Structures are given as structure tokens and as C-alpha cells.
């Protein structure tokens, strides 16, 4: 009997482990390394209406136990994702979460409406937290009214449940979470990256061509755990936790904080096999903790 299967709105998962959006492309690269059907779900890279090249390079910089990225939502555009990437992913028995982005409200609506009709897209992840684009992104994710409005409009057009991806760059994450829950969100994804910067001492300029970037990796895990802990007590919709997950123990920590599933981002770059490795390791970690099913852990630190 599985210790790992999870049912979340729209997502019937073999296990609660998924690669995080933007850290796994559309799966093709990792598909060469292992069977993607092993994953609980896949959050695909942010999709916008139009093709985007993204920001100039350098787009990544290393930090202590973390990294900064300013990819700038590069993606081949909605039509291509629908006609190619999602079709390719149909080869696998794994639910897809489509990460939806845009500059204007209408963009979000267009992407959401169309992509939610794709056969293997089982949920949307509303990216109102990308710190690396001039318009849209984080601007929608730091104001509760704007975020609710967008959530409502997307809910109206989406054929599948909608998870809202929250930005940690806010004073009151609970306020944001409660606002989007009221607006109809079916779940939350948290956290996106923390806004950060590194400066090249010789060039006297930020290392990233974009200046700022989003901080991810183990460095941010304590902030993510704190936010999941706070938010999970204030809302009744499930949370996909993320931020620095790289081991099965990290997954347990997020569940105890209040997450019902976990996404793995940066760790894929350090070890491309990290997701299947975590999935293989989890049952024995649960055994050690005398847990029969991973769902018993949800919110265990405050329940």
C-alpha cells in the first residue's frame, strides 16, 4: 500500500513530489534521464501568450546555499506549448500543472482559458510572483486586491482548479493567502523566489544583467517553512510547499509546516535525479518517523 499517494484539487498524485515551475522546462530534458511518470505531478515553465526571449545574460548567479535567477519568463508562447510541449507530455502518466503568466490581466485570462482545456493539464498555477519581469508578475502578487481580482477572473475561465503562487516579498503573507482563498483559489503554491542581488566587485555592477534576481535554494527554506506554517493555519485550501527542498527530510519539514505537496526547484540543477531520489527515499524516512501515510504529517507542527 502506498504511503505517498495524495489527492489535491484536480491532482490525483502517486506521490506529493513535483518539480517546481521554471526548474524543469517542459520536462523533455529530464525525460531523457528518467521516467517522468514516476513524478507526482509536473509544474511546467511559465507560459505567456506570446513567445518570450526573456532577460539578457548572465541570468543566474550563485549565493551562499542559494542562487539568483532572472530568466525573465522565457518561453515559446501559448500556441507552441499547447501544440508541442503538452502533446509531448501526454506520453507520460502524470498530471501537469500549467504555470500561467502575463503582463496584463487579459494575458493571464487568455492563457488560463486555453491551457486549462489541454487534456493533461489538471491544474493551473497562477504566477503572480515572478520578480524578474518589468510588468505583471510580482506587481500582481504584492497587492491583495489585485491578486483577488485576477484570481476571480481566472477562476471564471479555467476548466481546472487554480493554485495561486504567492510571492514571499510581502509584509503579510497571510493577508495575501486569505485574499486569494476568498477569491476562489483552490490551492496555494508557495514560495516563489525572494528578491535579491549580487554585485561583481571588479565590474562594479550587479552580476545579473537584469540587476535583481530571485533567490532560491536551501538558503530560503527557513523563510518558506515559516510562511507555510503561518498560511496553513489561516486557510483551508491545500498548499504546495517549496523553497530549498533537496532531501526527503526537507519534504517532511514542509509537510509538518502545513504543506500537502512539495515542489523541488533549484535542487534539480545540483542533481538532475533529485526528484526520483526523494520519492524513493521518502517511504523509509516515514518508517523511521513511524508514519504510516505522509498525509498524517500535514500541519503536524501546529496541529
Amino acid at each position, binding site marked *: 500500500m502506498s504511503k505517498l499517494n495524495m489527492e489535491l484539487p484536480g491532482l490525483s498524485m502517486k506521490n506529493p513530489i513535483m518539480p517546481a515551475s*521554471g*526548474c*524543469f*522546462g517542459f520536462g*523533455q*530534458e*529530464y525525460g*531523457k*534521464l528518467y521516467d517522468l511518470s514516476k513524478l507526482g505531478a509536473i509544474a511546467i*515553465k511559465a507560459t505567456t501568450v506570446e*513567445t*518570450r*526571449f*526573456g532577460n539578457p*545574460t*548572465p*541570468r*543566474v*548567479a*550563485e*549565493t*551562499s*546555499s*542559494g*542562487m539568483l*535567477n532572472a*530568466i525573465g519568463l*522565457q518561453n515559446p508562447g501559448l500556441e507552441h506549448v499547447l501544440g508541442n510541449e503538452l502533446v509531448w507530455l501526454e506520453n507520460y502518466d502524470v498530471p501537469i500543472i500549467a504555470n500561467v503568466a502575463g503582463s496584463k490581466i487579459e494575458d493571464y485570462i487568455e492563457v488560463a482559458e486555453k491551457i486549462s482545456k489541454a487534456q493533461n493539464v489538471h491544474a493551473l498555477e497562477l504566477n503572480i510572483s515572478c520578480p524578474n519581469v518589468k510588468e505583471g508578475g510580482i506587481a500582481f502578487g504584492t497587492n491583495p486586491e489585485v491578486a483577488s481580482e485576477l484570481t476571480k477572473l481566472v477562476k471564471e475561465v479555467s476548466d481546472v482548479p487554480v493554485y495561486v503562487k504567492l510571492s514571499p516579498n510581502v509584509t503579510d503573507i497571510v493577508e495575501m493567502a486569505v485574499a486569494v482563498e476568498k477569491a476562489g483559489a483552490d490551492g496555494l503554491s508557495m514560495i516563489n523566489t525572494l528578491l535579491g542581488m549580487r554585485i561583481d566587485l571588479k565590474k562594479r555592477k550587479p552580476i545579473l544583467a537584469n540587476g535583481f534576481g530571485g533567490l532560491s*535554494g*536551501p*538558503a530560503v527554506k527557513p523563510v518558506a517553512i515559516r510562511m507555510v506554517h503561518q498560511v496553513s493555519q489561516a486557510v483551508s485550501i491545500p498548499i504546495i510547499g517549496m523553497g530549498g527542498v*533537496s532531501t526527503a527530510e526537507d519534504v517532511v519539514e514542509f509537510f509538518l509546516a502545513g504543506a500537502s505537496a512539495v515542489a523541488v526547484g*533549484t535542487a*534539480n*540543477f*545540483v*542533481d*538532475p*535525479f533529485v526528484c526520483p531520489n526523494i520519492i524513493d527515499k521518502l517511504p523509509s524516512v516515514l518508517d523511521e518517523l513511524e508514519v504510516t501515510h505522509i498525509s498524517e504529517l500535514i500541519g503536524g507542527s501546529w496541529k
Partner: protein
Amino acid sequence: MIVANMEIISQRKIASDVYELVLKGAELVNYATQGQFLHLKVSEGTDPLLRRPISIAKIDKEKGELTVIYRAEGKGTSMLALKQAGEEVSVLGPLGNGFSLNGTKRGEVAVLIGGGIGVPPLYELSLQLVSAGVKVIHVLGFAGSDDVFYEEKFTKLGETYVATMDGTYGEAGTVIDVIDKKGLSFDTIYSCGPTPMLKAIEKSFPEKKGFLSLEERMGCGIGACFACVCHVKNDPTRNAYKKICTDGPVFAIGEVEL
């Protein structure tokens, strides 16, 4: 492409801050080719977090060994330089598309132009070109006399010119200066080195065909994160792109924007 722990067979300093590292013990050696690179994790923990891309300098399939040459500069490479024979390094690879051997026919002349720490991948390339019957000329540029390495090894394979910017060794000046001065003639160009050097090559020999190996800061190294993209030449949409980690690091001259 696999992830494997490889054993350090030897590590030695071969120039100022430059180390030659020989690794053994993974099947990836069997299918590595010239111009591909490895993504190395220099420590077990999260500091430093990311892997480091380092080109393959030599492939010894019989012994099952790979050689890489790197400059110990920042945190990760400096830690790598402290490792000793017998220790292990986690390797992801082989990655990328290396140098194609098809561009130059048996009997033709290829010039291999290396700049500083761009020199290493040219070594395995030269070995391969020579065994394919191509005549090779090497033009290797370094900052100064302390930075020069592998001159002898290249000399064994073909004509070799060394240029130093400060004139402390070989010819004074850039690699382009040397080619001009010596009046070298060749059919194709293969180059790896700093972007300004690659740009100068494109500009100086507009009619020549060949291949350039590029560098960019990387995340995944396998094509998934979009950290390492570059624009494609003559693309009015500005949306076309190549990933240096998977489409490159080697591109045909004129294919991408430098």
C-alpha cells in the same frame, strides 16, 4: 549523460592557478567527445551550491580516464584545487555538443585558436583532427609567461605559436596579431576563449568557416533552466535562441550572436 562519482587519479598545478585534473571511473568516458564539458560538484554540501562547467581536455577511453584543466579563481574552483588523488568528485556529463570533425577534410589545414583557460578543449580536438588526417596549427594566447601550459603537448601534434599579452613569453600581442604576423594560412578555424577574442576572430576572418566554443553562467547544464541562452544571428524577431549548454557550447561561426 549521467551523474557519477569519479575518482581523482591525479591533480597537478601546470601554470599560475591552473590545474590539470585526471578523473576515472564512470562509463561516461566511453561516449564523451572533443569539446563537450562536465558539470562538476566540488563539495558535498550546499556551499558552493551549483555545479561548475569545465571542458574535457583529454579523453582516454582505454584507461577510462578524462582530463580537465581549470583555473582556480572563485570559490568553487579553489575548493576543487584542494582535492587530492583518491578523493571523489561528482560529475554530470558529458554535456553539450562538442566540436564537429566534419568541417575539415583530410589534408586540409585547421587553425586551433585558444585563449587562456579556453585552451584545454582544443587539446582533445587536436588529437582527433590529427588522427583524422587534418594538419593542425595551434595559436595559444595567454596573459603572461606564468600562465602558459600544454605548449609542449600541442607542439607534438603540430605547429604551435604562443602569444602573451604582456610579451613575457612567445610572441607579444593577441592571437590575431600572431596569425597576421606569421602569415598563417588555413582552411578552418576552431576556437575557444574569452568572448572579445571570439568576436575578433569573426571580424578578422569573415570568409572563414569554423567553430567557436562559448561560455555562459549556467544553472542546470542540461537545457532545462534557460540560464545560458544566446540570440541567433540575423533574427529579426529576436526570439530565436540557442542554449549554450545543449545546443552548444560549440557553434558554427556566424550561427549565434557573441
